[in-house]
Structures are given as structure tokens and as C-alpha cells.
């Protein structure tokens, strides 16, 4: 008696749900301790001495932002330099120096937590660049995202304060107390599941037929763990998590899905703890989970009801259900790893991956970025609700005035502007259009338009997944996508920190009969509605030009 796919698939989804429900409370409590503990570890104190930072010194939003920008600029320079020097580095597998435009794109991509890959790692990246440059950014870019979310929470929690914490301390604690220990454990689990970890290079063997075959090597498990846990997504191999050495079986597949979701889904709990009302976090998590569930349902229906060819780009061991669950998790967080080829999904199934990103990756979003994105939407929601029913616009006792609503609105505008402008310019600029159409686009017709739209949406939202038929290794694509990734990462962060600072400076107004409660199902519904309206109104026209037209054709 074999179990139907649908029953097995639903059981798997239930498993993910149960694990997340069970883990998000202790995880949220742990994160709350990490970011509010008074004592520094001896290891951390030593590190602060080495880099020359006084951990007890609080920073204004300006200093906090300056720390992030300077640190990220140095990161880009490091990763760029490593790629240029690849020919001189050990364990480079004979791969040479990487061209400027591609090096720049890759450096920006990993520093911004995007992990867009214009290159094919199998034929481009040696082990030295992967571990010395890319793995390091996998860790630190994730810790930066968490730090920004914590700074915003502190802004909401503090009263008449001019500071938001210390960036270097938040960065260090995120690494030392959260990401590194969890990545070590996760890497060992992946190793046990069959993910490789060696420095063997490409091994050639003679097959049963007398032909030859290659067995690739590499320190993969260590990179894979932080790639998923930090919602990074950059594959060690070109095929990413579809590659059997990155994701050998259905168990590792489930484990990687949980790794992507565990921190983002625990952030609302951290938020609730730090603002002293866990119900506020639960409301946020409920909106995240609802959008996730709706999107997963739609994608799975589109993929299971496709014509022959649903298995194009999918692995036998995963089938449709384990592919759509992974695809929804990777595009709803800012991960962008793939265990199946999104380019070969049905038009409407692929559109769901695109929509997950267009939501601004809030269901549950990247580590840190998901929570701050959702909190900005919560601010907009409180404001709109105030207008509709005549309530005082305030959130957690903080007044939503002209400054706050301006900053929140600007935040919301950044990624759609980048995604749509990048797509439009690719087809509008005369010299560029030829290169995009003749070199970059792979599939003909409307699907080719969607490939370009997907690329800029992915870059603007710092996701990193692709409709990978697209050839992005051209000067236009490498540079324009890098600019979009940079602005899509740091401009929203600047607005979030400005918001945090404006909240921190305020007093807390006591809740009155006129205050809209923000922990009830009513608010969950409102926030959900606002998220959908903002996304749908922004992107509907361009979806109609691409996947909707293709799917309904």
C-alpha cells in the first residue's frame, strides 16, 4: 500500500509547522537573551579589544548606520580582491582571476545577503574564494540583518533615548551566540545525511560501462549550513540545492527548509519579548504564516495540475511536493537557494515564487529583514486604520506622525522602484536591449520577459534565486543588478534606522479607548490586507505582461 503524494506532502508540511511552532518560543527567548544580556563573553571581550571597540558605548542611529555601511564596504572590497587574486590562492582548482564586472556583482551579492550568482560555481570558484570570501559573508551579512531588526525593536521599546545599541556588539553576538554554534550543528547533520566535506577536487573514475565520470569535491557541508540558516542561498555548485552533494535526500531537504525558516519565524517572538508583550509578536507571525500557507497552496496546485513535464527541472527524490515547499520557503525568506529549476515551473507556479519576493519577503522574510519589513507594514496599517475608523495612529505607545509615515512610505517604495526600473531599463535602453534579448534571455516570448523581471525582483529584494536560463554574466546585468542589490539592501536599512531613532526619542503614550489594539485577529486581518493591497497594486500590471499572460494563454 503506497501513500498518495498529496498525503505525504501534507504530512511533510505539518512536520515543518510542528517543528517551527515548537522551536520558535525557546529560539525567540534565546535571541532576546542574546541581544539584551549585560555580560560579554570572554571571547567577545577579546575580540572587542582586537578591533578597538568599547562594547559598553551605545550608538545613535547615525553611528549605527555608519558602522553597517563601513563594514559592508570593507566586505565588498575583501570579496572583490579575493576573486581578483584567485589564481594566486591555494585550492583554487586551477581557476584564474575573475573579471571585474563579475567580481563586483558577486562581492555585492554576498555582502547584501542576496547571493545572486551570475557565475557557475562549478567552473569559476575555487575553494579559497568560496570559504574565505563567500562563507564569511554568509555569516556576517545574516548577522547584520538581525542587528538592524534588533535596533528597530529597541527603538520601539525605548523611551526618550538617543541610542539604539552598539552595531559591533550586535554583530558579534549574532555570530558568536547564534549563527556559528547553530551552523556547526547543522553542518554535522548535513554531513551525516551525505553532504560532502573534503578538499579533494574533481575525482575521475572509470564507470561500469568503461566510460569516465567525475566526482566533484569541496567543503560543502560547512557552506551549506550557513547558506540556509542565514537565508543566504548561494550554492556551492551551479545546481544549488538540487545538486545531490548539497541536498542528498528528502530528509536533508526537509532539514534545509527548516534551517531557512527557523530564525525568521523566531524573530517575531524576539520582538514580542523585547517590547514586553509576546502577543504583538504572535500577531506578526500569524500574518507571515498566513501568506506563506496561501502561496504554498497556490504553487502546489499549479505544479501538480500541470501538463506532462512537471518533472522538468525537478529531482526524482523530491518530486513536486518537496520542490514547491522548498521553492516557497526560499522565496518567502530571502534565501534564494533552489532545489528545482524555477524557470521550468508552470507559468503560474513560477509566478508564485515571483510573488513571494514581491511581497517584500515578509512571510517570514530574511533573518532580520523579514521582521523589519513586516514592522514597517504594521506602521502603515496602523496609520490607514486610523484614517478609516478615526483611531489615533500609534503603535506600541509610539505616535505615528508625518515623519514616521514618510519614512515607512519611502521604505515601501524602494524595492518596487528598483525591480521595475531595472526591468524597464533592460528593455528600454537601446544598446542594452539588444544584449538583453540576444544574450541574456533564454526562453522565447513572454517567459523571457519574466526571466528579466524575476532577476531584478530577486536582486531588489536581496533574494538571489533566478529563472536561471537567463545569462546574467554580461556587463549590463552584472553592474545593474549589483546597483539594485546595493540600493535594495542599504536604502531600506537607512530608513529603518531613522524610524527606530524617531521612535526611541519619543515618550510612550498610554493606551486609551481610542487606541487600535495591535495583537488581535482584527489587526492580523488588517495587516494582511495592507500587505496584499500594497503588493498587488504595485506589481499587477507587470505580472499581466509576464507570467499571467503566459499562464492564461
Amino acid at each position: 500500500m503506497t501513500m498518495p503524494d498529496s498525503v505525504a506532502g501534507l504530512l511533510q508540511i505539518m512536520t515543518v509547522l510542528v517543528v517551527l511552532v515548537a522551536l520558535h518560543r525557546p529560539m525567540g527567548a534565546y535571541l532576546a537573551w542574546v541581544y539584551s544580556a549585560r555580560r560579554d563573553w570572554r571571547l567577545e571581550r577579546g575580540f572587542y579589544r582586537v578591533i578597538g571597540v568599547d562594547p559598553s558605548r551605545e550608538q545613535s542611529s547615525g553611528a549605527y548606520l555608519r558602522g553597517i555601511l563601513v563594514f559592508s564596504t570593507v566586505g565588498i572590497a575583501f570579496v572583490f580582491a579575493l576573486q581578483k587574486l584567485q589564481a594566486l590562492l591555494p585550492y583554487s582548482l586551477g581557476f584564474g582571476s575573475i573579471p571585474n564586472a563579475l567580481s563586483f556583482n558577486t562581492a555585492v551579492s554576498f555582502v547584501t545577503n542576496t547571493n545572486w550568482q551570475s557565475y557557475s560555481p562549478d567552473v569559476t570558484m575555487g575553494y579559497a574564494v568560496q570559504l574565505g570570501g563567500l562563507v564569511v559573508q554568509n555569516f556576517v551579512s545574516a548577522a547584520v540583518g538581525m542587528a538592524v531588526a534588533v535596533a528597530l525593536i529597541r527603538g520601539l521599546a525605548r523611551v526618550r533615548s538617543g541610542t539604539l545599541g552598539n552595531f559591533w556588539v550586535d554583530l558579534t553576538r549574532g555570530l558568536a551566540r547564534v549563527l556559528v554554534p547553530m551552523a556547526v550543528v547543522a553542518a554535522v547533520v548535513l554531513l551525516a545525511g551525505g553532504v560532502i566535506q573534503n578538499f579533494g577536487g574533481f575525482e575521475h573514475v572509470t564507470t561500469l560501462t568503461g566510460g569516465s565520470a567525475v566526482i566533484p569535491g569541496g567543503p560543502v557541508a560547512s557552506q551549506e549550513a550557513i547558506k540556509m540558516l542565514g537565508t543566504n542561498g548561494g550554492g556551492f555548485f551551479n545546481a544549488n540545492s538540487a545538486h545531490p552533494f548539497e541536498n542528498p535526500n528528502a530528509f536533508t531537504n526537509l532539514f534545509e527548509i527548516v534551517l531557512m525558516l527557523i530564525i525568521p519565524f523566531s524573530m517575531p517572538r524576539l520582538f514580542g519579548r523585547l517590547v514586553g508583550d509576546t502577543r504583538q509578536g504572535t500577531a506578526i507571525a500569524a500574518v507571515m504564516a498566513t501568506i506563506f500557507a496561501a502561496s504554498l497552496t497556490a504553487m502546489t496546485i499549479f505544479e501538480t495540475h500541470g501538463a506532462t513535464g512537471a518533472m522538468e527541472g525537478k529531482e526524482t527524490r523530491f518530486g513536486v511536493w518537496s520542490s514547491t515547499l522548498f521553492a516557497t520557503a526560499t522565496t518567502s525568506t530571502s534565501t534564494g537557494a533552489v532545489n528545482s529549476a524555477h524557470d521550468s515551473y508552470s507559468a503560474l507556479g513560477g509566478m508564485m515564487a515571483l510573488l513571494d519576493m514581491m511581497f517584500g519577503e515578509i512571510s517570514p522574510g530574511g533573518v532580520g529583514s523579514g521582521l523589519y519589513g513586516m514592522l514597517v507594514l504594521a506602521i502603515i496599517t496602523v496609520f490607514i486604520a486610523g484614517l478609516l475608523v478615526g483611531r489615533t495612529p500609534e503603535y506600541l505607545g509610539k505616535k505615528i506622525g508625518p515623519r514616521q509615515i514618510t519614512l515607512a512610505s519611502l521604505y515601501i517604495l524602494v524595492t518596487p522602484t528598483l525591480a521595475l526600473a531595472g526591468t524597464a531599463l533592460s528593455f528600454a535602453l537601446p544598446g542594452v536591449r539588444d544584449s538583453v534579448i540576444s544574450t541574456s534571455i533564454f526562453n522565447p516570448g513572454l517567459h523571457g520577459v519574466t526571466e528579466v523581471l524575476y532577476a531584478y525582483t530577486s536582486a531588489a529584494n536581496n533574494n538571489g534565486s533566478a529563472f536561471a536560463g537567463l545569462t546574467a554574466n554580461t556587463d549590463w546585468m552584472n553592474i545593474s543588478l549589483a546597483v539594485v542589490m546595493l540600493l535594495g539592501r542599504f536604502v531600506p536599512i537607512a530608513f529603518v534606522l531613522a524610524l527606530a531613532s524617531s521612535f526611541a526619542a519619543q515618550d510612550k503614550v498610554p493606551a486609551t479607548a481610542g487606541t487600535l489594539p495591535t495583537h488581535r485577529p482584527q489587526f492580523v486581518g488588517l495587516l494582511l490586507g495592507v500587505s496584499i493591497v500594497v503588493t498587488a497594486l504595485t506589481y499587477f500590471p507587470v505580472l499581466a505582461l509576464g507570467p499571467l499572460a503566459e499562464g492564461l494563454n
Partner: protein
Amino acid sequence: MSVRTSARPWWVALRAMLVFTVVLGVAYTALLTGVGQLVLPHQANGSTVSSGGSVVGSSLIGQSFADEDGKPLARWFQSRPSAAGDGYDASASSASNLGPSNADLASSIKDRRAAIAAFEGVAPAAVPDDALTASGSGLDPAISPAYALLQVKRVAAATGLSDAVVHRLVESRISGREAGYLGEPTVNVLELNVALAALTKD
């Protein structure tokens, strides 16, 4: 603001990045490589499979069982179509990335259906979806049980083994879903062919 204070964050960032490169890049990777090589060497080194005393591949990396011209060899179970290099090139993992409305995808499927139906001597409608499509990695080590069973008659004829023996071999090599409900039932093609080689040797 003095030059000293405005330059400070840059020195902090530079020193931090140097420490992170050593700790998060080198030491972290070295630690896990040590654990892998000492505790889980089989997995860490690619889950290799041997036949007749020599390594013939990895149980996780799919292979082609075709001749030099790409023609399927009748005495071996066949893997799925592959878009990695010229097919199952593990130094160039890749999907086809053909879109759902791409005419090339429809014609590939049509051609493969006809070719496999003729090769196996079955009706075109009997060929399962995984046999008609390229995988996400181009290195899919597995096929569906349906595709493996479809190949029994042809393999039996080419090897001189009886249908029943080959059928039993396939049945014994079907892996159910992990933990009973994760993923899909599969047959590992390389392991199946290694078992087949052992049978034909006697």
C-alpha cells in the same frame, strides 16, 4: 569631526573582517572538515560505490549508461535525461531551464517518448514523466520505480537473465519515501546497475 574619529570605523571594520576571515572562513571550515574526515569519512568523501574492487562512482551522483555517441546501452538500466554538460557531467551541474511554453521542451518530450517507447518496446503512453524530463541538477542519481520496472524486459533480454530475476532485483532496490512520508519513492540507478553487474558475473 577630526580625521581620527572619522577614520576609526574603517580600522574597526578592517580588523573585524580580518578576524572573521580567519575564524568564520578558515577555522570553521577546517573544524568541519576534521569532523567529516574523522567521524563521517564515507559521506564526507562523496558516498562512493565500488564494483569489482574499484570505485565506479558515487551513489549520489547520477551517471550516463550510454555509449560514446550517447546511444543507451541495452544491458544497463538508464538514467533520466540530463542537462549537465553533454549529459551527467558532474563538473557542470545544470538544469535545462526550458520554460513551460518553450517549444523545445515540448519537442524534447515528444522525441524522448518515442525513442524510449521504441527502445523498451512499450506503448508511448506508458513512459513515466521522469524518463521524459531533465532533472534540476542534471545529476539525478535516481529514477522512479515505474521507470525502473519499465526497463526490466529490455535489460533481461540484453543480459540473458530471466525477466523474473531482473524484476526481483528492481523490486529489492526500490527505496520508499524517507521515514515513510518524505520525498518520493526512488530507485538508485548506479546501485541497481552494480547489483546487476554482480548477478551477470556469476
